[in-house]
């Protein structure tokens, strides 16, 4: 008997009578849209992210030019910013991204309770990009912020299927040395979150 068959047979023999799955319900905060935005911004700032409220794509482009002047290597994958920051064409080998100073990407939506932004390969260009870049900037429409992770997974279920998706909440960090918080462990050292007010098309 193979290990697979053996393991499955032992489980079948040993598993207890079926216990039904609970319903998932929540009463945390459904929250008004304004409350979601302020909660999201406050939580993200608390975990080391920098929130930049903007009301136009132009404001993002200007901010990026000012904060990351050339010769910083910026990878922009956001079409709306293409006039000021040409759309990047990525090499096939993700190792080539090691020298990227700033990656500029759109998130699908964000979660108020924990400051996380959901992003999948359709917006990532290369799966390695948000992890290997030195600085990461994500753009999220204020009206896409959902209250909790339960709402997040409802939204994910309704969206397009993905091969790889990740929640990113703030910059990479570690507290492994005597519980001292250090931002920038292996991934991005900073996270700038452009919170865009106006209609959503993300």
């Amino acid at each position, binding site marked *: 008997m193979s290990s697979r068959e053996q393991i499955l047979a032992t489980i079948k023999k040993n598993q207890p009578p079926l216990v039904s799955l*609970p319903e998932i319900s929540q009463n945390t905060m459904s929250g008004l849209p304004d409350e979601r935005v302020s909660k999201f911004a406050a939580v993200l700032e608390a975990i080391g992210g920098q929130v930049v409220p903007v009301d136009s794509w132009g404001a993002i482009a200007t901010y990026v030019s000012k904060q990351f002047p050339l010769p910083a290597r910026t990878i922009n994958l956001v079409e709306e910013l293409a006039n000021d920051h040409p759309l990047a064409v990525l090499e096939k080998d993700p190792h080539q991204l090691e020298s990227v100073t700033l990656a500029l990407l759109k998130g699908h939506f964000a979660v108020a309770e924990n400051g996380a932004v959901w992003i999948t390969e359709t917006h990532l260009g290369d799966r390695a990009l948000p992890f290997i870049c030195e600085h990461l900037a994500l753009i999220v429409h204020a009206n896409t912020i959902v209250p909790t992770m339960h709402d997040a997974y409802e939204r*994910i279920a309704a969206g397009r299927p993905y091969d*790889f998706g990740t929640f990113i909440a703030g910059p990479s960090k570690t507290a492994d040395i005597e519980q001292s918080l250090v931002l920038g462990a*292996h991934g991005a050292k900073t996270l700038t979150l452009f919170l865009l007010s106006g209609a959503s098309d993300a």
Partner: protein
Amino acid sequence: MKATAEPKTKDHAALAGTFNKDEARVDWHDKTLWFVRQKRDKAAWQLPDWEHLRETASQIKHNVLSNLHHYLEAFEKQAQQNGVTVHWAADAEEHNRIVHSIIHKTGITRVVKSKSMLTEECHLNDYLAAQGIDVVDTDLGERIVQLAGEPPSHIVLPCIHWKKEEIGQLFHKHLGTPEGNSDPQFLAAAARVHLRERFMTSPIAITGVNFAIAETGEIVVCTNEGNADLGVQLADVHIACMGIEKIIPQRKHLGVFLRLLARSATGQPITTYSSHFRKPRPGQHMHIVLVDNGRSERLGSADFRSALKCIRCGACMNTCPVYRRSGGHSYHYAIAGPIGSILAPGLDMKKNADLPFASTLCGSCSNVCPVKIDIHDQLYKWRQVLAKNGYVSETKKTGMKGMAFVLSSPGLYRFSGAVGRWFTRYLPFAVNNSLNPWYKQREMPQAPKESFGEWYRKNKKKS
């Protein structure tokens, strides 16, 4: 490199005794972990439905255990449809062989690994090192203990027992940082540079698995550092190793578990990265190794099966008064603390017979557990099983029998109390000496002149 647990030489009490010799360090260790426990409390109290969440998580896990056969088959089918190769390992040895054979086929010897308690349980690093494979642990805390030749002392905070000055010294020796520099910011930056080079040159990445979803065949890996993702996204081969109990039924259940996991572990609202790996990227190979190693047997035990609900958050360690003052290495098992103490005897009752006794049975572990495992009840039940099977020492047995004898006779009980009070008052050295283990690291309060019973009888007559 001897990166995993040594063969056991001393029991928990002896190892804790060694740790306790440095009182200042014990206090520091205790406070650091209590600080993490307090962060957990603050995070939990911010959610009005925290207790409801714990209950829901517990019920989902009970459903998983009662339907594991179906979920594993469903998961395997989905994962295979996603282009993932699924392997089954009956025990640690088979797991290690499978991982090695995947690596061996590529001819590559440089491997990066992110945190996985399962691979610690299986002693994978030792096995691969013996086969000439160079495995580097990429979580900062795990890298620190790996450089030091130690196993992690905590499942979430692997080097919680190390002081920054010692880490500075270790990095000076291994990474060439300036001697005497112990600034966490500086040391973490040095580790980033050191490990970035490994990420860039390791075509194989091993990761653990936090959750595996039966419905979709995807796995979720959570890190703060981004080390799992950097490893996987730059590698040609991704090997994910998981215990069979990591399965959850549907993706929407992640909403429950991701709300609980980081808040319970460190007090964060969520880890920085929660990555969902469904399909390998084009050209990449992805393997998932499903490991039993005693879990399917444990499933048959009504008393002990619920330990399989564990999501490895470490909250029970941070709150445990014994763990905080005895250190993770005193448990001589890959998973320390209360949860480790109920898991370890299931794997090897003889070797781990001491661990269920490394507890005051205060119940704090069960109270913070995000999936409501009755940890302290199981510690108590393990003691019964161990005693029945003859794994309790003669001294403990004799002591217990003596106590039962005294407590069952009121006259003898009163007499012993009076004798005890007299000795502790007038001849304290007769009991407070090295022959009496109760006095180790303890100072007893001054004994009163009379017992409550004596006082009560006297005062009752007066009124």
